[in-house]
């Protein structure tokens, strides 16, 4: 991962229209007076702390920050942020946030959602927000279970999952949110893990800096209904084999480190199929190891990377920024059209509009 910087919002393109804080902020400024009511041990606490801790780095006037959520455990998030916020209805947060962000370019708008909220009931809004590229930052808390309704399988649960609603195992093939987002023309897609505060913060920083829609999938542990779902990525021993940390401009390597300090495994392109595969790094193949290019105009390699993970064991799960490309931003273009209309036709004249061109006059 690139070094963590505390880049101010002045230099962040996505936030140039958002007013800056007058005084230095601290994490405390972003804590609301509401008691946090997630289950003790929930991964959501870690994400909340990371977001509250990260916000001062942006240096934005907190009255210009809005958190919009849907329904689910994670969707209580806005209540705990001392910013503007809306806890809306199930699945609809991206639509509501789209209206807000496209009408108020001076705001930094964040969506907090979960795997059920974003990918099941709200799947339609998610994909359309991504393709439009509205200036939204979407934090998708993925715990692979329905928590608030007490433990049914979710659209990211593994096949065969035994839950209250699937006593004989679930039949549904899961979504891979990162693959889905790349397929939906997302301009920024990243994945991180609740327990890795440093990584989480860095991904948030890059998402905040991205002009357009940023989707950040956060693997988040539900210790009540799906405890240990991401253990393979968290246990130090297992993580070496399971986690592929992506860094732009760096070779894609993981596994037990070699003497060089670099991972003993790497990702190469299969010359016959064009697909990606994991190999053990040797002096012969070392030069073949792919260098991660998050800014590649083509989403093909990012998609292939997203497919390396085994949905059951989570082995070979890439984390970090898979894709970050510049694409026209919806709200900017919407605003530009308004300016163009005024340039072309002059500022609207209501009396002239109402009169139209075909009138007749009745005089007394």
């Amino acid at each position, binding site marked *: 991962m690139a070094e963590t910087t505390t880049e101010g919002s002045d230099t962040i393109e996505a936030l140039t229209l958002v*007013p800056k804080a007058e005084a230095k902020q601290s994490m405390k400024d972003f804590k609301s007076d509401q008691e946090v009511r997630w289950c003790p041990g929930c991964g959501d606490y870690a994400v909340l702390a990371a977001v509250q801790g990260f916000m001062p780095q942006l240096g934005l006037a907190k009255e210009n*920050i*809005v958190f919009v959520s849907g329904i689910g455990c994670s969707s209580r998030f806005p209540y705990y942020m001392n910013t503007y916020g809306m806890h809306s209805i199930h699945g609809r947060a991206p639509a509501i946030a789209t209206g807000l962000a496209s009408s108020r370019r001076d705001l930094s708008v964040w969506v907090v959602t979960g795997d059920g909220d974003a990918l099941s009931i709200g799947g339609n809004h998610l994909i359309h927000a991504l393709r439009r590229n509205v200036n939204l930052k979407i934090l998708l808390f993925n715990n692979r279970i329905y928590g608030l309704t007490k433990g049914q399988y979710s659209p990211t649960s593994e096949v065969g999952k035994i839950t209250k609603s699937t006593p004989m195992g679930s039949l549904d093939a899961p979504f891979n949110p990162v693959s889905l987002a790349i397929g939906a023309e997302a301009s920024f897609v990243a994945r991180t893990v609740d327990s890795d505060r440093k990584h989480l913060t860095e991904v948030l920083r890059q998402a905040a800096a991205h002009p357009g829609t940023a989707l950040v999938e956060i693997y988040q542990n539900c210790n009540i209904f799906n405890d240990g779902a991401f253990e393979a990525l968290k246990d130090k021993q297992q993580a070496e084999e399971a986690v592929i940390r992506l860094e732009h401009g760096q070779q894609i390597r993981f596994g037990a480190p070699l003497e060089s300090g670099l991972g003993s495994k790497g990702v190469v392109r299969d010359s016959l199929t064009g697909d990606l595969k994991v190999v053990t790094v040797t002096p012969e193949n070392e030069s073949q190891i792919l260098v991660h290019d998050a800014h590649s105009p083509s989403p093909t390699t990012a998609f292939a990377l997203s497919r390396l993970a085994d949905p059951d064991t989570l082995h070979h799960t890439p984390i970090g920024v898979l894709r970050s490309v510049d694409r026209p931003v919806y709200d900017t273009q919407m605003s530009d059209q308004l300016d163009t209309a005024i340039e072309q036709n002059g500022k*609207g004249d*209501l009396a002239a509009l109402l*009169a139209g061109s075909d009138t007749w006059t009745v005089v007394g």
Partner: protein
Amino acid sequence: MTSQVSSPAEQADGAVVGEQRKPAGEKDVRRLDRVIIRFAGDSGDGMQLTGDRFTSETASFGNDLSTLPNFPAEIRAPAGTLPGVSSFQLHFADHDILTPGDAPNVLVAMNPAALKANIADVPRGAEIIVNTDEFTKRALQKVGYAVSPLEDGSLDGYSVHPVPLTTLTVEALKEFDLSRKEAERSKNMFALGLLSWMYHRPTEGTEKFLTSKFAKKPNIAAANIAAFRAGWNFGETTEDFAVSYEVAPAAAAFPTGTYRNISGNLALSYGLIAASRQADLPLYLGSYPITPASDILHELSKHKNFGVRTFQAEDEIAGIGAALGAAFGGSLAVTTTSGPGVALKSETIGLAVSLELPLLVIDIQRGGPSTGLPTKTEQADLLQAMYGRNGEAPVPIVAPRTPADCFDAALEAARIALTYRTPVLLLSDGYLANGSEPWRIPDTDELPDLRVQFAQGPNHTLDDGTEVFWPYKRDPQTLARPWAIPGTPGLEHRIGGIEKQDGSGNISYDPANHDFMVRTRQAKIDGIDVPDLDVDDPHGATTLVLGWGSTYGPITAAVRRLRAAGESIAQAHLRHLNPFPRNLGTVLKRYDKVVIPEMNLGQLATLVRAKYLVDAHSYNQVNGMPFKAEQLATALKEAIDG
């Protein structure tokens, strides 16, 4: 174009200022006080355009008018079939009229299907102009005519004008470099030219329109103008048309002012733009295309220079969701739809009720349930508007009565939404949306002031003396909560669909608080200031006819007929369906009989009976068409006598 009717005296002479073709005067000219014309043809024949143009000519001439476009949901049903028939009815007069008319005096039938689909509505004695070129054996068989109705005597008693419209059009355009097929397309303009001659319509507007519509294809523009003129000249020269008609301008019926013709959806669009200007708030429309509401999305998207943002969403839910997001941000937010869309938006309307943010939900009602009759009219969404949400979720309802009234209704809906911080349902319908009438263009200085005050600072002092902002601390008069938009320092707050504590707005599951909040939200809507109901009762009648929405025209026309025949009947028409005007209960109890005609199975009657314990009688029609005045007059007469 502008024409001027300068004084009643001049207008009585039939003088019309403005360049136009005039009949040469060798034929009889008869004066009529009103005419109903129906243009009917195949969906591809351009009947809506023909009707629109005749309407514009008529409006610029200064007649009062009312129109009824009627078209299939299919864009192009199979050619020459009954389901493919599209028609446009226009009623115009030298006096004030209220409906598109019951029965046409003139039917223009472009093919056998158009004749067959419409003949039942046309009384004997009426004129029928048929395009004989289309009365081929095959075309006749397609709609089940074994023998041509032009030859079997079935049209005896009608004044039939057989005109080979297609042949004449092609002949008139032979100088143009057009294929036969291209030339045939102008036959609607030939028909328009003929009718324009028959009724002395001004023609320059149509010629101008054609020039600009086909600006990029000057040859097509010239061909259409040539066909239009050929139709006019055909009327002027052929012996079959011995008489032409004058219908004098209706200046006496109109108050002084400048007028234009306007359809309901256009008036509604303008009303929204006007409301945005009067409120000094940017307009934000979140919408998903649906018949018959899409024209509002089209229209508003043309006016970005008014600061109007239009967002075509991925679905109905996202349309209202985006609007609600924009409302949170301080826009005048609107979503436009029809009945099926309202069903999808219900949960978000409920959220807006809970968030107490201003939001306009425009429902252009159509035939239901489900997909129903997308292009036909109905007013069967009243109970959906009133009750179609989970929980106690009261929403104010406003309904326009005529196409032009959609402008004022939009401003009124905006007033309520902004003043009371609530979603408002505006119930228009397909008849109002597509129908049109003359509209006195309002002076923009006379429009209502809709400006609002956003919250600026703390509004509450805690026991320890701390000044805080409470998002649910209400205005004692209106019970509206403060509208604090993001970007306002110090007022950071969170709102949501979970029940909140009165005042602070924090999440609260407290039973007593919920009971209080439910009652308070209801009280806020019940307390909305709406004008008293006007009753038109010149003779002290014992029977009251009560209506709402687009039935205003037919009900008023029926009431006039009854009064002209010496009957006594009172009339009142509701614009506000929730809350009802304060005096409605008193008004209802003044009459022995209350009749409520509706294009549904009695939805207003249900509300009125429940609220006022009045034995209101329903008179219902749900056939996708507006009531006919004669039919209503008969029904009301029966009620008076019954």
